[in-house]
């Protein structure tokens, strides 16, 4: 009876090898089925980017042709902005000009026309027409340089005393913040109002209008009644008169950013500040000192890429409260205008050249040059941005690249390719393409989805995964090995039995 009760374990249904193997296999099958899921949930999306197209583009040079029709020569020459060549082309042109002065010929409509006149004293620009004076059949030696600096000032190395380093970075939108600061209005001679709207429309608006293809401006203005300086100006006495002076060092720290609120932070556009500062009575008259601590005539200065400041000393007999009128502000705003031109990068006219269009602050030469210059800059920086995206994605292996990034990169690249392929006679069009390329490239770079996953050393990964998987894996693997060996033993025994 006892033999009947104690059965051989291998004859129990749930201890049969095939059941055990099925259980084991189901675990393994489940794991294999889970693998793709695990793979797809843990891997990051890294779409391929058009790297070869970008590489191809980076070898190319952007050319924006300039047509110049010389109003005396048979042929009209086309200049390419490749600098070494430009100069020689210009001089060749001018040689031709001197040698074969003939009748005026029809120029392409968008060409710059250079003509020689005998009745002008200095070079004059009217729209796209430059007249160069000529004496006794000779033109001045420096004419090639003059034309160069008119058309391609950004290619020549920046001589000291120019203002290229003041220029703000390109952005499609800017905010202009005009601020009237009273040093201390409570002490008297307080300016409580100014005709800012009229002044802006007279001095600033014409520039904004002319550069509207390039920039979009928003204007804000404010008056503050208490704006203390963060330092004590130097006191100079000149006989009977006492004046206060700002040294060069003072100018750098003039803006008391801790206490003055100069612009609202409503948008992310770059802000250009224009500050009219009325010194308090205790600090007036306030003058700028030169390096030898002598007061200068100047009453204005520029902080690079930030904005401009104009000081205005009130007359001693000024009433305690008053309103600044046009007459007093004209001078101030003409200063702001010059500062604005410097800050947004409008090239200066070469020395001794005058404009015949007195109604417009910028000549066509200057505007076109500005467009070309910004187009070059934008093309360069969008190319750099695209290259750095490629490089970073390559370098940082856990940086995701999503669909929107790829689309932006592609579109930016196509805009660049259009820019590089075309021959853009109209600089404004070239600018549009370059600006679009830059905006898209930057948007791709700054895409929030591009944030790389955090880095963890391999040891950390083992430390996290081992306690999770080791307890599950050990019985599975051991059972598997046992089953395999049992199976092999069974085969061997069966063979032995058949051999017997």
């Amino acid at each position, binding site marked *: 009876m006892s033999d009947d009760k104690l059965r051989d374990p291998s004859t129990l249904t749930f201890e049969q090898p095939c059941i055990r193997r099925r259980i084991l296999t189901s675990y393994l099958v489940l794991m294999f089925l889970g693998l793709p899921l695990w793979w797809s949930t843990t891997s990051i999306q890294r779409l391929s980017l058009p790297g070869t197209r970008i590489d191809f583009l980076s070898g190319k040079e952007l050319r924006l042709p300039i047509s110049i029709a010389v109003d005396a020569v048979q042929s009209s020459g086309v200049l390419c902005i490749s600098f070494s060549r430009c100069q020689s082309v210009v001089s060749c042109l001018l040689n031709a000009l001197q040698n074969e002065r003939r009748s005026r010929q029809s120029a392409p409509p968008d060409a710059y026309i250079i003509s020689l006149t005998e009745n002008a004293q200095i070079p004059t620009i009217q729209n796209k027409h430059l007249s160069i004076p000529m004496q006794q059949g000779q033109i001045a030696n420096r004419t090639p340089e003059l034309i160069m600096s008119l058309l391609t000032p950004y290619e020549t190395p920046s001589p000291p005393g120019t203002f290229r380093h003041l220029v703000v970075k390109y952005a499609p939108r800017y905010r202009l913040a005009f601020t009237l600061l009273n040093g201390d209005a409570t002490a008297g001679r307080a300016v409580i109002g100014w005709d800012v709207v009229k002044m802006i429309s007279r001095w600033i608006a014409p520039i904004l209008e002319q550069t509207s293809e390039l920039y979009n401006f928003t204007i804000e203005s404010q008056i503050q009644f208490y704006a203390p300086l963060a330092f004590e100006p130097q006191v100079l006495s000149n006989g009977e008169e006492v004046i206060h002076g700002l040294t060069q060092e003072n100018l750098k720290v003039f803006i008391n950013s801790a206490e003055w609120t100069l612009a609202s932070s409503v948008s992310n556009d*770059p802000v250009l500040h224009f500050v009219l500062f009325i010194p308090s009575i205790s600090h007036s008259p306030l003058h700028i000192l030169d390096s030898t601590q002598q007061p200068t005539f100047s009453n204005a200065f520029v902080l690079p890429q930030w904005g401009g400041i104009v000081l205005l000393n009130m007359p001693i007999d000024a009433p305690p409260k008053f309103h600044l009128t046009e007459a007093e502000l004209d001078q101030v705003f003409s200063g702001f205008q010059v500062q604005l031109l410097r800050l947004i990068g409008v090239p200066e006219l070469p020395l001794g050249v005058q404009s015949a269009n007195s109604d417009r602050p910028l000549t066509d030469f200057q505007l076109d040059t500005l467009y070309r210059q910004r187009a070059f800059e934008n093309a360069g*920086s969008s190319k750099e941005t695209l290259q750095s995206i490629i490089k970073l994605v390559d370098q940082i292996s856990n940086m995701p690249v999503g669909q929107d990034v790829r689309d932006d990169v592609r579109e930016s690249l196509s805009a660049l390719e259009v820019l590089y392929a075309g021959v853009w006679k109209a600089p404004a069009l070239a600018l549009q393409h370059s600006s679009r390329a830059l905006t898209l490239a930057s948007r791709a770079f700054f895409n929030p989805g591009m*944030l790389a996953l955090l880095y963890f050393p391999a040891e950390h990964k083992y430390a996290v995964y081992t306690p999770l998987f080791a307890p599950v894996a050990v019985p599975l693997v051991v059972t598997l090995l046992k089953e395999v060996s049992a199976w092999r033993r069974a085969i061997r025994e069966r063979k032995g039995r058949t051999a017997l």
Partner: protein
Amino acid sequence: MRLHPFTFSFLVFFLRIVFIVKSADTDRAEKFAVHRSLSHHAPAVAFESAHTNNWAVLVCASRYWFNYRHMANALGMYRTVKRLGIPDSNIILMLADDAACNSRNHFPGCVFANRGHALDLYGESIEVDYRGYEVTVENFLRLLTGRVEPSMPRSKRLLTDDRSNIFVYMTGHGGDEFLKFQDSEEISAFDIADAFEQMWQKKRYNEILFMIDTCQANTMFSKFYSPNILATGSSQIHENSYSYENDDDVGVSVIDSYTHFVLDYLEGINKTSTASMEDLFAKYDPVAIRSHPGVRSDLFHRPLEQTLITDFFGGVAHAEVMTARVTEGHTNAPSLLDSPFAEIDPINEGSGHEYELVEALPALADWTRDPLTITLRAWGSLSVMGALVAWVTLKSRWQRSS
């Protein structure tokens, strides 16, 4: 299962391999941290900084009352950079901000950094940009790389360009190559190095001063590989940073030692000071600070003695005077403006110089990040594990069969 003694020795061997790989990393860290290299590769001409604007990113990565001192560290730096002329709009302050109004604060609304309560750091006009639970590793990296949501307000963005000098200050609890953020996550030295590289690639800075006060702080800048970064930290690897003093009324430590001495030195600096970074570093006293501060300047290309403290802590570097009094009407006259000190900075202009650096980068990059090495290491350790398991199973089987 009984383990054979040989299995043990195998395990020990395996662990030793892992340790060697790890310590090779840390050796490199130590080399950077301890060694104060003052060598520079910049041309021997004007070393004035080419920046036009200054930014500061101040991060206090701790929260809770007992980390009062970290809040005080960050606020102390905030007060200093603001005093030296960086406007609030250019300061990004990341602060848990749970000290001033903590119910355990005996001085509500105040944060003090010294025993005598001489100076209330919280005081007035504190603009905390990332507060409380917004202080995360992700937000910090998004801030640096500029990869923020379009809806992010201006005050939470780092709107820098290639003319910006950025001062990055971090404080909190850290360790070998990591800094803990609010007890929930950590940032590694690799992440910051990669973020700086991305900033460099997008031209988001001219120069960076990276300063960190935490335990084993110098390991945090050991992985940097982007140019124009000057880094300094409070303590070497395997070394703690300590607090400076306790206040019995507040009941906790009020400031960390390293930050205390740095702030103490900066108190003597004003906006027009000509003191250099070298002067600051020379003031580091390991005995007083009770740890060994480190400086890493091999990525920085100006001599430290000509790098002004105000290049990083100050406001504006240049101003251009219009020489003639602005007069009526004529806008095209080019002679209206003149620049008495318009030196063209060779560092800025000579961009070829910077490109050389970019090309040299692969050499600087850490070999441990090489994908091939990582893969080899992973497979190597996997096969060691496999061999171990096989060994144990086979061994037990042999024992049984014998």
